Each structure stands twice: as structure tokens, then as C-alpha cells.
């Protein structure tokens, strides 16, 4: 090779390729092969089974998954966009506070959020029962469950995707574009539909894509709320629990195909047009709300919204303070203290899952940190053939639903292979760190890509021409400059890993069970206080991390998705 730079690229690529092929591609292919296996023969029997009318449950589940996902996108879009417009286009007292509160759902890990909704609006929920007592009704007026329950939880947890992307897009629109349209004689309505809205397209596409994929993959909400309602991600879990690995693999493949098809469709849709702003926006203006009546209306709506949005957090906090046995048959809890938190330090059995989660997540994101930084560097700064392929490989764990990632690992590592160094990984401690590591590769790589793309090539070239070798340059120039971004992404991966449920439920063992599994166990034992205490720890952890990344690492909240 005439070019030593190319040689360096190859040296960097080899470990990246080995890891991606061994732990992303090979497991995915294992699932694909398994889906064509039936009683030891290669056949398409599983697929005919899936689509046959006699076991219609799979088809129904598939339909339900798609149906819920589409509805989730629509509902979240309506809520998120409306709020984004109100908070970014109008100025009224409390605007800043309300807009800060509006993103609060993101500090609730999905499982904890679902738990809060059950406590609040479920069969024995606080809200329905309070209304019942308040108006002396015979029965509770409503409860959530089944499809409405899932949709409500989805809307609550996913509208921030729309809210955040649309807000940031609105702030990036150069106000002179709208002013130019007004100046040319367009009315408010026309300006909105012909200038503002089209410019929001990329934001809306990105958010729709996210919500759709997250809904397709959603596991906690259906798991706790679905009742008899079948969705595909749950079906995979049940098939696996019944030992029907072939069918679980087939269901995984079909769920992945739908998710990825939607992803590709959105990519295609977005690439039809160029929406890039010719120059950067210079801070959007807000129109002042002056009419006193409108002002009161706005503030009231904001306040009510705030209560609804924070109720789940408050519930988790309150529940975590209810000691075991203080809320059994009573409608409302009777006693509050810190017993659940104190027990964490007294009872090693209770501390154990928390420790597991922290240790496993730490190992996993340490791997993500190193691997993500190098991979991102190679992707952004190096030229080589097959870059698109590498990019796709890196994004696979993001495009695949978590349940599928879990299944892939089961099918790849329930027997010895080169990549597991000749050992069976399923059933050992190491399968969970591996699963978390794979799950959060895309997050770390993408947050690193964002900072590396900002880093002009000439900075690195300047160091090289001043005599610094590649590694010295990387260590002293590139690393310090991108570290905040990488660290931000890694911290985020860490808190998400601590709350990770869908892969954990497929892969945990008694010894390495993480918090999310223990929350389920505690709920099953009706030990709600302890479950809520675990949840509360996660909420605080996430809040602290988001605060740190926002304040010190320059990570914008909209980049955290």
C-alpha cells in the first residue's frame, strides 16, 4: 500500500468489523436462520404458520402493533406539535417553566412510567378512586387498560419526541422567511401552511419515525397493561417462554422487517427534498399574548397540563415512601416513611439488583464509550470502501426492536461459538452486559458523530503538519475536543441501560437480575413501595444525568433522543 493513512484505517477497521460482525450481524443472521428451521429441517413452515388463518393470533398481533404505532404517532404528533407551537410562538407568563415541564416525561423510564400510570389510573388507581369518593359514585368512573391504556402511556411518553424536534426546528427557522412571506402579501394561515409547515417536514419525519419504531418495539406498556390484547413484541416473549424458539425467531424477523421498512420509507420520503436552511436562524421571535382573558386561559391550560404531566412523577415518589403493608386494602396509603430506601442499605437482597444494574450498565457503556468513539472517528474522518455498510451495521441495533436484539443474542449464544470464545453465554453474567453494549452502540456513535462532524478536518491536519503522529493527535487534539459530546452520549446510554427492560426480561438470570426485573418481581408480590423506590432511584439518576449533560457537556435536550 502506497498510502500509510490507508493502512491506519485498515488497522482501525479490523476490530470494529470483528465486533460488529460477531455481536450484531451474526446474532441477527442466527435469528434469520432459526426462522427457517422447523423440527431440524430448512423450511418456510414458520412463515406459513405465522400468516395462516388457523393461528390468527400472530396476524392479529402484527396488526395490533402497526395499529397502535400509527395511532401513537398521530396522537403524539398532535399533542407535541400543539405544545411546541404554543410555547415557541407565544409569550405569556410562565412560558419558560411550562416549556421545561413539557419534557419531563423523558425522565421516566418506560417501565416506571407504566407503573405510575397503573397506580394513578388503573383498577385500584388513585384518580378513579378519588373521583368515586368525591362524587359518592358506586363504581370507579374509568380505568385504563388494554389498547386505550397502551395508547395513553405511549402518548404521554412519546409526545416529547415531537415536542422537542418541532421546538428546535421552529427555533432554527429564520424568522425572515416568514416575514418575507408576510411582506409578499400572504396571510397568517397561508404563511403557516406554505412556509412554516413545509420547513418542519424533516423534524416531523424524524419524530414520526422515532415514535413509530419505539411503539413497534414497545414492551413494558403492553406487558403490564395489555390484558388479553396481543402485540407482536409480547408474542415474541411468550413464544420464547413456551420454548418455541423457531416461532419466536420468525416473529422477530417479521417485527424487524416492518420496523425497517418504515425506516426506509421515511428516509426515502425525507430525501426527496432539500430542507436545509440557507443560513442559520437568528432566534425566533415570540408574539406577546396581551389580551388579559387569553393570558388567563393560557396560564390555566399550562398549569393543568403541568399537573397532569407531573402526576406520574409525584405518584412514584409518594409510592416509594409508603412502607410495605401500609397500603393493602385501604383506598389511600396510610403511612409514609423512608423504609424502602433504608432497606436498600440494610437488606443485601434488595440492594443486589440495584448493584447489578449499575455494574452491568457501567461495563456495557464503558465498552460503548471506547468502541463508539473509535467507530465514529473512522466513520466520520476516514475514507474507505464499504463505509455505508459499516454505517448500516452500526445502526442495526437501533433499528431493531429491543426484544429482537434479545432474541438475536439468545439464538446466537445459546451454543458455543467463536465469538463467545467457545462458551455458552446465555445463562451467564456476561450476556446482559453484552446485550446492553449492543443496544447502546448506535446512541454513542451518533452523539459522537455529531461532535466529530463539527470538528473541521484542518484541526487534525494542523497537528499532523506540526509533527504530531496520528495517535498523539487523536489523544491530545481530537479526544479533548469531542469528549463532552461522547461523554454526554455515554451518560445517556448509562441511564437508559440502568432501566433497560425488554432485553433484560429475555436474558436475565437470578444472579444478575437488574432493577427492572426486580421491579416486576416486587409488583407481582404487591410490594409496590419497594418497586416505586427502585423507580424513584432511576428517575433521580436520569434527572441528574440530563442536568449534567445539559449544563456541562453542552448536550442539547433534543439531541438526547
Amino acid at each position: 500500500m502506497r498510502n500509510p493513512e490507508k493502512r491506519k484505517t485498515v488497522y482501525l477497521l479490523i476490530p470494529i468489523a470483528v465486533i460488529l460482525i460477531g455481536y450484531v450481524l451474526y446474532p441477527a443472521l442466527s435469528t434469520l436462520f432459526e426462522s427457517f428451521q422447523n423440527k431440524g429441517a430448512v423450511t418456510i413452515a414458520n412463515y406459513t404458520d405465522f400468516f395462516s388463518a388457523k393461528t390468527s393470533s400472530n396476524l392479529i398481533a402484527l396488526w395490533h402493533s402497526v395499529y397502535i404505532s400509527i395511532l401513537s404517532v398521530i396522537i403524539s404528533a398532535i399533542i407535541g406539535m400543539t405544545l411546541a407551537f404554543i410555547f415557541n410562538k407565544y409569550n405569556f407568563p410562565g412560558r419558560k417553566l411550562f416549556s421545561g415541564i413539557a419534557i419531563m416525561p423523558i425522565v421516566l423510564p418506560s417501565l416506571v412510567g407504566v407503573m405510575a400510570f397503573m397506580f394513578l389510573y388503573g383498577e385500584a388507581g388513585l384518580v378513579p378512586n378519588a373521583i368515586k369518593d368525591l362524587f359518592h359514585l358506586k363504581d370507579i368512573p374509568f380505568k385504563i387498560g388494554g389498547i386505550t391504556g397502551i395508547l395513553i402511556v405511549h402518548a404521554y411518553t412519546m409526545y416529547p419526541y415531537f415536542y422537542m424536534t418541532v421546538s428546535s426546528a421552529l427555533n432554527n427557522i429564520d424568522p425572515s422567511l416568514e416575514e418575507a412571506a408576510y411582506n409578499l402579501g400572504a396571510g397568517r394561515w397561508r404563511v403557516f401552511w406554505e412556509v412554516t409547515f413545509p420547513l418542519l417536514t424533516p423534524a416531523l419525519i424524524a419524530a414520526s419515525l422515532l415514535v413509530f419504531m419505539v411503539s413497534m418495539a414497545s414492551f413494558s406498556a403492553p406487558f403490564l397493561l395489555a390484558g388479553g390484547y396481543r402485540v407482536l413484541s409480547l408474542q415474541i416473549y411468550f413464544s420464547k417462554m413456551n420454548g418455541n424458539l423457531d416461532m419466536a425467531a420468525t416473529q422477530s424477523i417479521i417485527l424487524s422487517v416492518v420496523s425497517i421498512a418504515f425506516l426506509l420509507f421515511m428516509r426515502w420520503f425525507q430525501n426527496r427534498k432539500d430542507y436545509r436552511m440557507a443560513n442559520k436562524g437568528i432566534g425566533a421571535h415570540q408574539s406577546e399574548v396581551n389580551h388579559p382573558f387569553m393570558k388567563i386561559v393560557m396560564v390555566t391550560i399550562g398549569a393543568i397540563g403541568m399537573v397532569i404531566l407531573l402526576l406520574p412523577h409525584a405518584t412514584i415518589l409518594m409510592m416509594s415512601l409508603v412502607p410495605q403493608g401500609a397500603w393493602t386494602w385501604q383506598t389511600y396509603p396510610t403511612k409514609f416513611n423512608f423504609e424502602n430506601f433504608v432497606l436498600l442499605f440494610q437488606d443485601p437482597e434488595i440492594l443486589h439488583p440495584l448493584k447489578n444494574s449499575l455494574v452491568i450498565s457501567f461495563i456495557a457503556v464503558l465498552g460503548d464509550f471506547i468502541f463508539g468513539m473509535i467507530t465514529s472517528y473512522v466513520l466520520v474522518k476516514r475514507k474507505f470502501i464499504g463505509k455505508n455498510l459499516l454505517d448500516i451495521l452500526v445502526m442495526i441495533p437501533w433499528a431493531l426492536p429491543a426484544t429482537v436484539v434479545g432474541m438475536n443474542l439468545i439464538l446466537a449464544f445459546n451454543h458455543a461459538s467463536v465469538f463467545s470464545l467457545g462458551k455458552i453465554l446465555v445463562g451467564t453474567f456476561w450476556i446482559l452486559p453484552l446485550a446492553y453494549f449492543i443496544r447502546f452502540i448506535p446512541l454513542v456513535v451518533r452523539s459522537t458523530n455529531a461532535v466529530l462532524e463539527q470538528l473541521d478536518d484542518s484541526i487534525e491536519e494542523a497537528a499532523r503538519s506540526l509533527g504530531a503522529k496520528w495517535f498523539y493527535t487523536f489523544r491530545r487534539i481530537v479526544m479533548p475536543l469531542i469528549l463532552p459530546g461522547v461523554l454526554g452520549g455515554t451518560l445517556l446510554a448509562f441511564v437508559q441501560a440502568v432501566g433497560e427492560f425488554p432485553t433484560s426480561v429475555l436474558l436475565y438470570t437470578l444472579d444478575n437480575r437488574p432493577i427492572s426485573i426486580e421491579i416486576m418481581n416486587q409488583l407481582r408480590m404487591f410490594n409496590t413501595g419497594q418497586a416505586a423506590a427502585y423507580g424513584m432511584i432511576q428517575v433521580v439518576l436520569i434527572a441528574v444525568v440530563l442536568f449534567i449533560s445539559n449544563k456541562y457537556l453542552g448536550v442539547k435536550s433534543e439531541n438526547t433522543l
Partner: protein
Amino acid sequence: MSSVSLEAVQKTFGKTTAVNDLNLTIHEGEFFTFLGPSGCGKTTTLRMIAGFYYPTIGTVRFNDKDMTTVPPEKRNTGMVFQNYALFPHMTVFENVAFGLKVRRLPRADIRKRVISVLSKVRLGHYSDRQVSQLSGGQQQRVALARALVVEPEILLLDEPLSNLDARLRDDMRSEILRLQREFGITTIYVTHDQVEALSMSDRIAVFNFGVCQQVATPEEIYNKPANDFVAQFIGETNVMPASLIYKDEHHAVFKLEPAGQKIKVKKTNCHISQDKGHLALSIRPEGVNILKQHCEGDNIFKGKVVFIQFTGALFHTHIKIDKHLIIRATQLNTEANISFNTGDDVWVHLPQENVRVVPKIEVTANA
């Protein structure tokens, strides 16, 4: 200090040829400029000398040493980037010291040399500032200091002034030149600005479409352009396609195309072998005389003033000779010249010693 020679250098990116068959020698201590429009291959050539690209074919030598595939960190060149490429997480001092630290100099030496170079670029008091606190011109000087402090064999400057405003650009031009003379360092300067090139360089290489069109001193480039591209790119000129109809030992007579006016040219101005394809006549606007009355003589044509622009020191006048030919003339703002208006009939005189015959190059590549 080194000389640089490029021998039959070619660089292709995929299917596009960025630089084609380039042969150049840059002498020791010379201020050498690559001049050309954007995308002409000048920056690519500079980056091959810096080591960021390796030529597809050909050899790069410093003195007599083959440097073609030596990595950038082993070339000992100092480069100043268009956007300065200062390390944003370091202070001015740390930026300048970087190259010395890499070379493992003792701390005391580093300190001494950094302080000395910072005072040379007049930034002595700024050494503890973060680079983001500096103005554009100051950042520029930090970049220069950082490149100079390692005592490079060759100083490479990639459009260093293009991000500065006009006034600052003038100051930095003389600043760079002052430093270059002081350090006596071989300097290669890339620019698309002809004024910079003409005013700073010892020699200039003019590039277009990856091909070097002419290498010469600024005066030669301006007065004796090698072809119509060079004539048009540097300064203003009137280019008229023409063909030879007659020559003797002192003069040649050309016929303009397509209208057929005959123009007499001094033989010394057309040392162009005429079977080399199409020819053109070039005359600078300041070489054109405008006459208010008809005079007898060679190269005098009647025309109509169609446009006058006053820029202070100068008048720019466009005179339409016929529907194919408009001659641009530039005159000093002296009283004798201001007495005609748009629409006036005038006579244009193209003095034969001011007309230059150049080959017309076929523009084949797409911009």
C-alpha cells in the same frame, strides 16, 4: 530551508483529475504563489506538498529527497489553513507550543521560542488568552506563529487572508511578507486573489482545470501572459480572436474574427508559432487610447461610447466598434479625458506595442 520540486505529478479523485502533469520547481527562500479560480487544483497541489494527499502519479521532492509518500508529520512543513485551524481547547501559548512539544524540546526552550515568535507576530501580550477571545487578524497571526515556530523547511499558506475583511487583509499582506523576508523561508502561497498574488510573490504559477498555465514573475504574468486564460484571469483585458494574414521581420498583421478589421502588431509581441491552433489578440484597457478626432494611422477604429464608469482615480469606458466587438478602455482621471459622454462618436487607437498575441486555449473541462 528547502527547494521543492514536483515532477510529472498527477492527482485524481475517482474519475476527476484535480491536477494533471505538473512540473514545478520552487527555489529556496522564494515566495511562490499558486493562483487560479476555485477548483483549479491549486489547493490539491499544496496538500500534496504538505502530505495530506499523495499524488496518483509523479514525485514530490524537497531538495533532492523524495517526499512523495512521507506522512505529513515527518515533512517539517509549517501550514497556515484558510480557517486557521487553531486548537480551540488550548491557549495561544499552548497552540504555538504544540509543534515544539511534539518535537520534545525542553520546557525552557519551548518557552523562549514561543515568546520570541509571539513577539515577532506582535502578540506578546496575548499568550494566555483562549483563541476564541481573539479577533480574526489575531487568530491569523497565531496560526502564522504556530507554523513558523517549528522552523519549517517550507511555509505553506492556504488562502490565509480570505476570511479577513478588506482593510485587515492589506495589513496582513505586508505582515506575512515581512515575516517571510525575516525568516527567509521558502513559502508557497495559495490564493484566488490576483492582487495578492501580484503584490506579494517572487513567482506565480497560474492554474486552471488542474493544469499549470504559466510560471513566471508577476510582471511577466501581467505583461506577457502565455495564453488568453492567463491574460483574462489576471487583470482586465480585451481579448479578440484573430488570425494571421501577413508578417515581415518587424511586424505582423492580423485579421479580427469575425468582422475582419486588420491589426498590426510588433513582431516582438508575437513569438507564437502560428500553426498552434487558434490565436487571440489581447490588449489591456490601460493600453487603449481614445481619440476624439479621426487620425490617420494603423489600428484606429471608429466607435460609439456605450458605457462610462467613474471610480475616482480612473475612468472605465466601453466603446462599441461593431456588433461583435466592444473595446474596454481605462484612463486616468485627468482633465483632458473627461470630455465625452455616452453616445459620442470616438476613435479607438490600439498602439501596436501594447497588443499581445496569445494562443487561444480550448476550454475542454467543465467547471
